[in-house]
């Protein structure tokens, strides 16, 4: 495919590396912009051309669309891939790129606008006959509020319209006490926010986060590439993603994937996107649509064998999707584990430090944005790498994930690797019985276990032998004398 002679990546880290890899494999020149803080990163080193951008902070540089478009024009880039985050869901940027005569590798700006407005997106999905969580807003018609709330069906979550932070929220499982609970929630709302207006919606017990990858071209073709389960989250950020979703029956899986493709089709969606759902108790509701490539897209690539970035480039160049829905098969099971520089035992606080050693496991796909000799700084998100494994089935994928985590060496900065190893070894994970609040419910898994006395002795021995002061102290006392000491045996 020679759709474009050159593509500029308006991003950094592992996703810049990921996009450059495909651009080069397709015979295109791969360009990347970078802030000075990222000079010594793999993306800058592997790009055919790396163009420095500046900003008041490193993040500001990557958010400076006008500067990036200027650089792209100068470098004669024919297309810009925004990656995820930064400018990827900025409709103004997508329009400005097109205006500059450069192809934006992503959906039409109108799609970004529609899905970026959560209320509009929800109404659009509902009007097209797809499931959204039943809800009632008191302000719409205060006189019928209680009746409309009852019609939602239990369990019901009551929220103050002006609320936030969980204050004044009440869960109602028995309709006979609904009015009483509404009165209490109103009084709490007035007390906390000076505003007693309420909003109710169907409460999903033990919710799971399931999303579906979709892909559309400019010729009206839309397909789904199956689902990903992204339920395991901490601080509202995903850390383990997999496909297929272990919690779905085959029938539910088919239905959720078809609904996602239907939403994308109704929106006339082009390029890669993800439709996110909340799932619980056999029901699922539209949450939002992300109009970009996702962090966890490799999970889909592993089960379908497709290169999502290549498909994005193909579609952006105006080509037709080279397959139909029936051609796309999901094989085996794939899991992605996000390796973060953080301390799970301290509330997942981000950590920084030099990367003294980084040796990715050879038998796994490891998408990383750092290299040995680099550094994890506080300038960006603390994700170091994504470790992606595949297996004939989920059990085999979990085994491979254990081996890949244990076999990936990262020294110099505390990571969540040991926590991830404990988490996926737990019967809860193996059985697929989890929900979005599972990590908060399992402090036993986030706490660092005390190493065994033998492990402590082994690590201290390695450390004492490797550190110069302790080695020198040992060498200063000849072996003969050492034998006379109390520790002789």
């Amino acid at each position: 495919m020679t759709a474009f002679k050159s593509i500029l990546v308006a991003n950094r880290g592992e996703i810049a590396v990921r996009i450059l890899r495909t651009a080069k494999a397709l015979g295109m020149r791969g360009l990347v912009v970078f802030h000075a803080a990222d000079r010594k990163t793999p993306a800058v080193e592997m790009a055919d051309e790396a163009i420095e951008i500046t900003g008041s902070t490193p993040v500001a540089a990557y958010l400076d669309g006008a500067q990036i478009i200027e650089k792209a024009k100068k470098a004669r880039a024919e297309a810009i891939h925004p990656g995820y985050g930064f400018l990827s869901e900025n409709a103004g940027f997508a329009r400005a790129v097109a205006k500059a005569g450069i192809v934006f590798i992503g959906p039409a700006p109108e799609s970004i606008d529609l899905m970026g407005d959560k209320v509009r997106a929800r109404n659009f999905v509902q009007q097209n006959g797809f499931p959204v969580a039943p809800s009632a807003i008191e302000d719409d018609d205060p006189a019928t509020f209680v009746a409309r709330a009852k019609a939602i069906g239990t369990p019901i979550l009551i929220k103050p319209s002006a609320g936030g932070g969980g204050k004044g929220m009440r869960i109602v499982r028995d309709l006979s006490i609904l009015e009483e609970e509404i009165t209490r929630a109103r009084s709490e709302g007035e007390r906390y926010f000076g505003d007693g207006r309420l909003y109710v919606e169907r409460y999903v017990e033990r919710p799971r986060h399931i999303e579906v990858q979709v892909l559309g071209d400019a010729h009206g073709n839309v397909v789904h590439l199956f689902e990903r389960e992204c339920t395991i989250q901490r601080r509202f950020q995903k850390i383990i993603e997999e496909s297929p979703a272990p919690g779905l029956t085959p029938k539910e899986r088919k239905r959720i994937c078809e609904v996602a493709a239907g939403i994308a089709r109704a929106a006339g969606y082009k390029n890669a996107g993800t439709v996110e759902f909340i799932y619980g108790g056999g029901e699922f509701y539209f949450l939002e649509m992300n109009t970009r490539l996702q962090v966890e897209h490799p999970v889909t690539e592993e089960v379908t064998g497709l290169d999502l970035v290549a498909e994005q480039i193909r579609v952006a160049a105006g080509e037709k999707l080279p397959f139909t829905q029936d051609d796309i098969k999901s094989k085996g099971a794939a899991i992605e584990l996000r390796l973060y520089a953080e301390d799970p035992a301290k509330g997942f606080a981000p950590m920084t430090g030099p990367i003294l050693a980084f040796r990715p496991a050879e038998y796994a796909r490891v998408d990383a944005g750092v290299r040995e000799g680099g550094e994890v700084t506080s300038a960006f998100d603390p994700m170091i790498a994504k470790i992606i494994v595949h297996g004939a089935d989920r059990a085999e994928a979990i085994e491979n994930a254990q081996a890949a985590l244990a076999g990936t060496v990262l020294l110099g900065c505390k990571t969540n690797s040991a926590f991830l190893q404990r988490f996926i070894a737990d019967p809860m994970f193996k059985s697929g019985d989890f929900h979005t609040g599972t990590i908060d419910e399992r402090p036993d898994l986030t706490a660092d276990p005390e190493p065994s006395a033998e492990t402590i002795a082994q690590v201290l021995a390695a450390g004492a032998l490797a550190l110069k002061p302790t080695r020198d102290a040992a060498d200063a006392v000849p072996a003969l004398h050492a034998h006379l000491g109390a520790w002789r045996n």
Partner: protein
Amino acid sequence: MHHYFSLDGAIHRAWLTQRGDDYALLGEDGATHAAALYLDSKGEGYLQFEGQNLYVVVAVKGDVAWVHLDGQAYEVSLLDPITHLGEEAGGSTADVVRAPMPGAVIDVPKAVGDAVSHGDVIVVIESMKLETAIKAPRDGVIAEIAFAKGQSFDRDAILVRLEALA
């Protein structure tokens, strides 16, 4: 003689000595473990420990060694012995309390000249979005509180100094 090490935040005592052609680690329980370390130029190799060969990767920066052993990474820091003298008896005779990590002071419930008991909170700091109480290491009188509320500091900075014991 002992070296003091911090292993992932917990303090351990150990001494390394020569034994024959190799070394031995004298642990805090008095047990002796034959040990030798064979690494290539990239820090990869094996630890010979009580006759077993264990695959390790070791990286050193200053007085800190990072050890990858059996699928896990450990951080071993060699501590300044002066700071930790006297801790063996259970209490501490230390005059100073140092910052365990970089951060900022968010509260100072005590003042210079106050008498404090072991465990009293003198300063509250915030590091990496976490609050940590800095407590008196022993009974004594506060001689110095180095940072005021709102000020930031680096790792190992002296936060509090107690009047020296007579």
